[in-house]
C-alpha cells in the first residue's frame, strides 16, 4: 500500500505493508541508515526519531500510524551537524562505539525542545529509555547540559533544520 511520508522536510511515497515498522521503512526503503535497530521491542530506543516533534520508537511505530505527522531522523536534525546537541556530542566526545548515539541524540533534542534547562533528574527521566551498551551515560548527561548552555548563551532555538 502507498503511504505518503514527510521525512526530514521532504515528502516521499513508499509502497509497503501497513504493519511495516517505520524503522525499516526508513532504513531499507528510504536508505536513511542513521536510525538504528537494536531490539525491535522498544527496550533500547536506538531507533528514536521525532514524530511531530516528540520522541518515538520507530521499531514500534507501524508506518500506517504515521499519517501526516512530520518525521525527523538524526539525518534531519540539522542540515550540517550544527544542532546544539550534535555540537555538544562532539565537544564532550560522547560516543564509544556510537551505535546508540543517534537515538540518544534524538531523545536529548526532544528533551531540550520541551525543557531548555533540564536538571540531572529531568535528564535521567527523559533518557532512561535509551540504553548505551558502552556505558557513556556520564558524558551524555554532561553533553545535554552543554547543549542547554550553548542554546541559552546564543539565545538560539532548538528548532530542527526544517519545520516539524
Amino acid at each position: 500500500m502507498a503511504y505518503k511520508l514527510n521525512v526530514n522536510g521532504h515528502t516521499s511515497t513508499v509502497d509497503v505493508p501497513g504493519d511495516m515498522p517505520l524503522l525499516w521503512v526508513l532504513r531499507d526503503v528510504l536508505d536513511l541508515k542513521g536510525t538504528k535497530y537494536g531490539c525491535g521491542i522498544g527496550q533500547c530506543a536506538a531507533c528514536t526519531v521525532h514524530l511531530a516533534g516528540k520522541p518515538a520508537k520507530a521499531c514500534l511505530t507501524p508506518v500506517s500510524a504515521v499519517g501526516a505527522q512530520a518525521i525527523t531522523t538524526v539525518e534531519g536534525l540539522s542540515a550540517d551537524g550544527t544542532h546544539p546537541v550534535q555540537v555538544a556530542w562532539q565537544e564532550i566526545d560522547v560516543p564509544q562505539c556510537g551505535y546508540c548515539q543517534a537515538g540518544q541524540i534524538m531523545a536529548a533534542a526532544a528533551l531540550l525542545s520541551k525543557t531548555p534547562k533540564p536538571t540531572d533528574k529531568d535528564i535521567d527521566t527523559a533518557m532512561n529509555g535509551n540504553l548505551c551498551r558502552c556505558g557513556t551515560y556520564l558524558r551524555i548527561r554532561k553533553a545535554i547540559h552543554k547543549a542547554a548552555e550553548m542554546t541559552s548563551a546564543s539565545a538560539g532555538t532548538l528548532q530542527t533544520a526544517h519545520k516539524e
Partner: protein
Amino acid sequence: MKNTFNRRSFLKVSAVAGGGVLFSLQTPGLFAQGRGGAPAPPLNANNFIKVDANGIVTIIAKNPETGQGVRNMLPMLIAEELDVDWKNVRLEQADLDDTKYTAQSSGGSTATPTAWIPMRQVGAAGRMMFVTAAAQTWNVPASQLTTKSGQVIHSASNKSIGYGELASKVAGMPSPDEASLKLKDPSEYKIIGHSHVAYDVKAIATGKPLFGIDVSVPGMQYAVFEKCGVFGGKVASSNIDEIKKMPGIKNAFIVERPDVSMDAVIPGDPGLENGIAILGETWWHAQAARRKLQVTWNEGPRASGSSTAHAAKAAEMMKQAPQKAIRTDGDADGALKSAAKVVEATYSYPHISHATLEPQNCTAIFKDGKLEMWTNSQQPLRGRQLVADTLGLTPKDIKVHMVRAGGGFGRRLTNDYMVEAAWIAKQAGVPVKLVWSREDDMQHDYYRPGGWQHIVAGVDSSGKLVAWKNHFLSFGQGDTFAQAAGMGPTEFPQRFIPNYALHSSVQPLGIKTGALRAPSSNAFAFVIQSFLDECAHAAGKDPVEFRLALLNSAIEQQPAPAAGGGRGGFAAPGLDPDRMKAVVQLAAERSGWGKTKLPRGSGMGVAFHFSHRGYFAEVAQVKVDPANKVRVEKVWVVGDVGSQIINPSGAENLTQGAIVDGLSEMFAQEITVEKGRVVQNNYHQHGMVRMAQAPPEIDVFYSKTTFTPTGIGEPALPPVLPAVANAIFAATGKRVRSLPLSKSGFTLA
C-alpha cells in the same frame, strides 16, 4: 584546490628497498596474530601514511574499531612521530591485509602494547624521509634540520618547507635505517597524552552509515537465518515452500552442514550451523515471513541440558573429590587444620551474553568463485580463513572490508555471521546482507561461562592468610575446559599464600561459550576479591590493610602468576606486587578510605585485580535502602597501565564505561538454559544499567609509572563487581556470593 587526490603523493618507501624490506619493525611475539600465530611481516610506512600536495596527511587506521577508540589511538602514535598537526590528519580505515598491516584484530587489550613502538617508528620513518628530502632540496646537512607541524625547518637560514611540497621528492627515496630512527622524548609530545575527540564523532552525531548493519551494495537482498535453538540441531521438515510465496520474499532455502561438531566441548569458532535462510526485499519482509516459518528440528544430543540440572550437578560435585588438581603449593589441608580461623564459602556466577547493541551482521557478494565481504569482526583474518575453509576457497579469493562495529566486547572474536553471509550469498547467487534479529543474537551467542567456586581459607593468629583451597566447578569434558571456562595454575592469590591448592571439576555444557570483556577475570575478580574481604573481616583487619599485607607476602621462589584472563595473543608478564600495592594505596587515598564517616545504610568496598597487563584498584561507595535497593553513589578507579595514557579523553570514557558495564553484569544479566536452548531472548530479560542507575560520579585516575604502556579496554572492569559487593557488605552486613545480585534480593536503585 580541486582534484587534490590526483596530486597526492605516497611515501614510496618499500620500492627503494629494492623490493625488499624497508626496515624491520617486528617485535617477536608481539605481532603474532592470536595465540601461536606465525611471525608477522615487518611494517612498512608506505602502507600507513599518505601526504597530499596541500600537506593533508592521511593515516591508515589498521585495526577494527569496536568503540574502544583504537581508530584514533594508533594513528595518533604515527602522527606524533611524523610531527604533523592532528587537525591536518585524515583517517582511512584499512581493509584486511595482513601482508601490509600485520595483526588486525581487536581483543585482549593488545593494541597499545603491541603497537606502542612500531606505530611510532612508522611515523618517525616518515618524518626522517621528509627531513632527507628537505636536506637535498636545500643542499644542507640533515642534522641542521628540525620539524614542526608538518614542516621541515632550517633555522640557520630561516627557511621552512611543508611536507606537502616535499611529498613528490619523498617518493623513491632511500629508506632510513631503523637504527637511525630517534623517537621523541615524552616531554616533546604534542598529540600523545592530549585528548583528541573520536575521529568519527561528527559522522556518528549526524547519522552517517558507518556500521556493518548500514552497508549497502547494489542488488543486495536482505537475509535472516533461522537456526535450531539447540546447537547442532538440523532441519527435519518445514513449510519453506509457503514461506517462498510470501510478499516481498525473494528466496528461502535450507543450509545443510553435515559436519557440525558433536563433541562434548564445542570448539571456539565452530562455523556454519544448519538452518533456513530467508531472503527478502527488505529485512523486515524476511523477518516477517520468518515469523510464519514452521520447522521441526532434529535437535540432537544437546537438547536435554538445563541450568537447574547444571546447578544440581555442581552441588553434587562440590561434595565429591575434585576431578583434577590444577596446582598444589605447600600443604593446604594441613595448614587449615592448624589455622586460627577458617573461612569457607561458595560463590557462583551465571552465563552472560555479550549483547552488543548492533546485532551480528555481514554483507557478502559471491561472484565467479570470489567473495567480497564487509564485516565488523574483531578477528577478520580468522574469519576469512573460516570462510575459505567452509566454502572451499583460498583466502586470496576473499576480499574483506573492515567496518565499524556497534560494540565488540569479545562477541565478534568469533565469525559465525561471516560464514553464514558468505554461504547464503553463494547459495542464493545474489549479494546478501545478513542481519541477525536481537533474539538470534541473544540466543546464539558465545556466552561468558558461568561457574561455581568453593573456597576454604585459613588465617593464623596474627591475621595472616596461610592457606587457600579452591574447588573450581566449571564446564567441559575430561581434561578440557569449555571455551573461556578454565582457570590456570597461576591465578591470584597463588604465590602469595604458602599453602595453595586449586582443584577443578567439570560437567558438559551444550551451549557455545567464549571470551567476554576481561574473560574469566570478570567472574574471578568477583569471587576472589569478595572472599578476600570475608577473610579480612575474619582476621579483624581493615580490607585495604589486609590486601596490602597479602601483596607484601609474595613468595619469590615461585614463578610469577600470569595475567588473569590474559588471552591477549602473547604471554603476559606476571603480577608485580609493588605496582598493585601502589594503586590500592592511591585508591584508598583518593576515596578517603577509613576517613569518611558515612551514614547508616551506606558503605565503601575495595577490590583490585590484575589482568591484561593492567593494575586496577577500585573503591565503591553505596547506599542500600531497607528494601535492598542499591544506589552506587561513586566509584573511584585507579589504574596503572604504564608510562603513558595516549588519548586521555578516550581512556576516561572507556574506563567509566567499564564500570557501568561491570554493574550491568552484576545486577542485570543472567543467561539460563532449558531443554538445551537459551531462555532469554531480548533486553527485557537480560538488561543493562540505564542512565538513572549509573553511578553519578566515576573518578578515574591513571598513575603514570615507568613501564611500557598497555591497554585499558578490559582490565578496568573486573574490580568493580567485588568493590560493590564489599560495599554492600559494609553497608548492610549481608554478603553477596551469587550473581546476579537479584538472587540475593538486591536490585539497583
